[in-house]
């Protein structure tokens, strides 16, 4: 599916944007040829997360964006894959950030990121701490709880009622942000599988060409999304 090195599927992309709805039959055919089924989440080869951490991220993201109702859930969007890859990369290790001491993790939240830990380190320390709280409060690790108790536990985590150490107190905020990022980011990062979340809300993704549209007022844009690599949905 690659036309030029470094420019994946530009030809297909152009075909998709220019042809639009009129050629949707052709587009659907092309799509069928391109799609290879992804590795099932249970067999996914993790880059950063341990087995226990993966079980937690699977269970937690499934409650943060559940499968029930309209639109994909985090599991259908493969958000856990996104989180694993992000934590393995330069975001996880806070490469771009100023991480020199001294640190004041007790500073009030409005002062910004003040923990000495990177995002990946926060996941590593916070998941067992939260699981221990779940065990003590509800009798099992988070992933083993009923959905109702999981929601209650996440609410406690969000409200700061779990007693996490200052260094990891922002875990819920980070987890929720990463989950939504994985839901809405381009599929090349592992989440937003088949652009289902873009289809759901009506965002055209990487189309980025709307010359005829500014003055078409109160008229819904009709085309589905495309991704950076040229997928369409």
């Amino acid at each position: 599916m690659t036309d030029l090195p470094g420019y994946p599927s530009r030809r297909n992309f152009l075909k998709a944007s220019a042809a639009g709805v009129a050629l949707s039959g052709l587009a659907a055919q092309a799509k069928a040829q391109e799609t290879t089924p992804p590795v099932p989440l249970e067999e996914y080869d993790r880059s950063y997360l341990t087995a226990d951490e993966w079980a937690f991220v699977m269970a937690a993201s499934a409650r943060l964006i559940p499968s029930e109702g309209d639109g994909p859930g985090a599991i259908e969007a493969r958000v856990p894959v996104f989180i694993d890859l992000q934590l393995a990369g330069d975001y996880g290790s806070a490469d771009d950030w100023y991480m020199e001491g001294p640190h004041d993790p007790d500073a009030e939240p409005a002062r910004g990121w003040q923990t000495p830990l990177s995002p990946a380190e926060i996941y590593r320390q916070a998941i067992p701490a939260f699981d221990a709280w779940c065990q003590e409060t509800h009798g099992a690790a988070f992933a083993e709880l009923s959905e109702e108790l999981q929601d209650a536990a996440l609410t406690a985590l969000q409200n700061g009622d779990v007693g996490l150490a200052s260094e990891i107190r922002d875990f819920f905020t980070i987890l929720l942000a990463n989950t939504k990022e994985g839901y809405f980011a381009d599929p090349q990062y592992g989440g937003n599988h088949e652009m289902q979340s873009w289809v759901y809300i009506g965002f055209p993704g990487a189309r980025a060409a709307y010359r005829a549209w500014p003055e078409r007022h109160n008229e819904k844009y009709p085309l589905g999304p495309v991704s950076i690599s040229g997928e369409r949905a």
Partner: protein
Amino acid sequence: MARQEKKKDVVIVGLGWTGSIAGIELAQEGLDIVALERGHDQNTVPNFEYPQQIDELKYGVRLKMMQKPSQQTLTVRRDGGETALPYRSLGSFLPGNGVGGAGTHWNGLNWRPQEIELKLRSHVVENWGEEIIPEGMNLGDYPVSYDELEPFFTQFEKVAGISGQAGNLNGEIREGGNPFEGWRSEDYPMPPMPTTYDSAKFRDAAAAMGYHPFHAPAGIASTSYVNPYGMQMGPCNFCGFCERYGCYQYSKSSPQTAILGALKRYPNFEYRTQSEVLRVELAADGQTATGVTYWDDVAQEEVFQPADIVILSSYQLNNVHLMLLSGLGEAYNPLTGEGTLGKNYAYQMNGGVTMFFRDEEFNPFVGHGANGVCIDDFSISQNDFGAEGFIGGSYWRSGTFNGQPIRNMPLPKGTPSWGAGWKQAIGENYGHAMSIGSHGSHMSYANNHLDLDPTYTDRHGRPLMRMTFNWQDNDLKMNQFMKSKMEPLAASMNPDLMQSGFKGEGAMYDVRPYQTTHNTGGHIMGETAREGAVNRYSQSWKAHNVFAMGAGNFVQNTQYNPTGLVGGLAYHTVNAIRTQYLSNPRPLV
């Protein structure tokens, strides 16, 4: 010992808007010039190409076009009683990185200040008396007037390629333009951009209330265009990826689209990237600079670059930091009011109303950074400061600028932040909301200033700069005034639901959410060396061959996005260098 490079006539520190302007204008004089850029090289091709640029996670969220705090940052505290803590990850403001600087990733809103904004102290004293100036506010006049700067605003607008419609052409008020703008000697270089649905709704509602709607002045090409340097722009296609991105189609004004291609053709100009200037070196007599010392990130060594003229054109915060480290003036002392470096740091006071229309389609991804219709009916020139109890004003704007869903997902207040309720709400609300923003002035105060941090250092061992900044009552009152005026206008549009976001009394500065990258002041212009770090030509009072350009020159911030004033001041400065300084290097004031 540092490596030493061959002496140049001019060394430019930072290759963004002002560095590019200085480069090309001084290259026309035949001077031998080198520009030093801390970041990487980047150009429309290959760096901003479609579709790789259309990546919200990489650029919008992970901020890959921005300054990396691991390389350079500062510390922040709200007042002198707090311990400043590092700005470790970017939030409130986003300094750029690499060739083009913030001029590459901006939204393209290009405003001139109002005439009285440059003489605001005099305007206040003449109309209401000095007694209405709150204690602790450093209200000042700029040492240049609008009339003096007008030709340079025009010059910058022609170079940058601005789309809009004149409201005041040589004093004549023109239908459809901004009747409250400063006079302009020529109309905009390009006609206004088309109007999106939200803008049209706002325009009609504003007109019905007797206000004066006009098109936002956009550094976004509405037509094909060739600027005075021969650089070409093509019309914008409303891709919706302006702020935090480079423009993939030569439509957004930037150093890349407007200047750099022409500048690089001058054989007497060169630029070096990954070259981070560490300090300006002063001569033994302390009256002039001998050049700059920089860190060559490729060779991993310090380099001394001698030069006859030093142009500081890095981001406002970094200019102030360099001047503090180099002793280009005395650090400001907020208790005594003595010293000028770091004085009058200011920001921007913004708010807005979001409206939901369940059955209407806004296609929020169809837009550009400077999209929209504005009103200036509550601008600085229109407000009765004595009656309202504040000094300031704002412009209002409505127009889609990006519908990127990680960051732009307005939901009704009370919507759960996760779970089934959140998922249902994003499906119901995406594309069915519009907003009006209030973009307001920010005055200067003794409390809000910049100096060097006593604790934290950068990778070169230099002290980080320390920002002391908090919101002040005057500007918060202005913001609440805008709320009281904007809510009735929003209500007149009969939304299904509306909600306001305006900071009010007691608000504390929070470094986490993005607010604006309009950091101003710190090396302000002054009539005398006691008042400012530079004179009316952005020339250092301390060393006459050092010129410090950019928003650091602002005596207080205006109610507008700063780029138009930054560009005008840069051309004003470079004109003075060309016509007055080169023939006889000396203090120009």
